[in-house]
């Protein structure tokens, strides 16, 4: 009986995913309503709940896809995978204002460059503080602080050790997770309540999943604006980190 049930859940993974995420959403909104009286948005709690489940999944299986590594919850992997994520993000643009997007063009370019360079510098500085003195390792960890994709791309291009590449991915993951959790908390302080600031935010912070989840938990209407800017961030990071930023690092640490 249990076996049959289990089989049905595994075979219809995507449906299981709908049920699990639906239940999680309901519970999160219930908590937001009752415990915080709506002060913390339900989706912020849901995203945090998702991260907790990902941690539990990781502990249980030792894999790297969180809850989705448990066969019963493999459907979560499809539901939250890149394909459907991009698909639904694009859908949020329906009804967004073209004029708002165009108006913020130049400041978004500034935000993209500033965001990539500042994050790289922070990561690089921390690497130096922890005793790294070779430009390749410093640049790879700096790149990881940009996003968890820029890190390994840079590390592979420069020939960093796998230990350093793993650290750079971890730094990028930490960034994405902090952005997911902290965005709704700091939204008021940084004035994140209009399309213009949302685009600047997307360009400066940049990490795709962090921006996507952070804005969803702040104000879903702002999602397309932030994501539109963030979509250029990883690309710019992959362009700058292994080239200009690495060369600049080598000027200071010539090994």
């Amino acid at each position: 009986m249990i076996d049959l049930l289990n089989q049905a859940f595994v075979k219809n993974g995507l449906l299981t995913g709908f049920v699990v995420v639906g239940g999680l959403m309901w519970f999160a909104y219930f908590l937001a309503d009752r415990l915080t009286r709506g002060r913390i948005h339900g989706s912020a709690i849901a995203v945090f709940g998702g991260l907790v489940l990902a941690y539990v999944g990781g502990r249980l299986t030792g894999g790297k896809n969180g809850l989705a590594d448990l066969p019963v919850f493999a459907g979560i992997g499809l539901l939250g995978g890149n394909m459907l994520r991009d698909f639904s993000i694009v859908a949020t643009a329906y009804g967004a204002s073209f004029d708002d997007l165009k108006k913020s063009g130049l400041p978004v370019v500034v935000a993209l460059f500033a965001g990539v360079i500042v994050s790289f510098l922070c990561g690089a500085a921390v690497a130096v503080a922890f005793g790294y003195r070779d430009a390749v390792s410093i640049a790879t960890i700096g790149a990881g602080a940009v996003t968890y994709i820029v890190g390994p791309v840079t590390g592979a291009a420069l020939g960093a050790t796998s230990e350093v590449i793993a650290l750079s991915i971890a730094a990028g993951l930490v960034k994405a997770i902090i952005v997911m959790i902290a965005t709704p908390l700091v939204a008021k302080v940084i004035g994140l309540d209009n399309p213009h600031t949302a685009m600047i935010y997307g360009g400066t912070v940049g990490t795709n999943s962090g921006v996507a989840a952070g804005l969803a938990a702040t104000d879903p209407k702002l999602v397309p604006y932030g994501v539109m800017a963030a979509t250029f961030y990883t690309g710019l990071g992959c362009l700058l980190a292994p080239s200009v930023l690495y060369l600049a690092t080598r000027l200071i640490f010539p090994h």
Partner: protein
Amino acid sequence: MVIYGVALLAFSSLLGLVLGDWLGALIGVKANVGGVGFSMILLISLTAWLTKRGWFQPLSASGVVFWSGMYIPIVVAMAAQQNVLAAIKGGPLAFLAGAIGVVLSFALVPLIARIGRPKRPEEK
């Protein structure tokens, strides 16, 4: 029909992602550059153009609106499959490298947001 909206959305997404891959290859970067952004611009322009001609009916639009409404649950599912374990195992170096950058990036947002925003009379 609902499928018209879904198909238009899928078409915009695919074309945008292909453009992003091309742009990445063009500038010699191993990443998609702006793909989702191009998809969004395509979707906005196509639906505006079709709506003006009366070819994009409310029922077709519901195929797009449904997926836009699925966005938050999909993001929650995405959160549930992050490698949280690796992030925690990265230890203090990974934590500080990620966290300090986020704090400074957040601090930059209101500063950069001043550029290009219509100036209020009290600002010079």
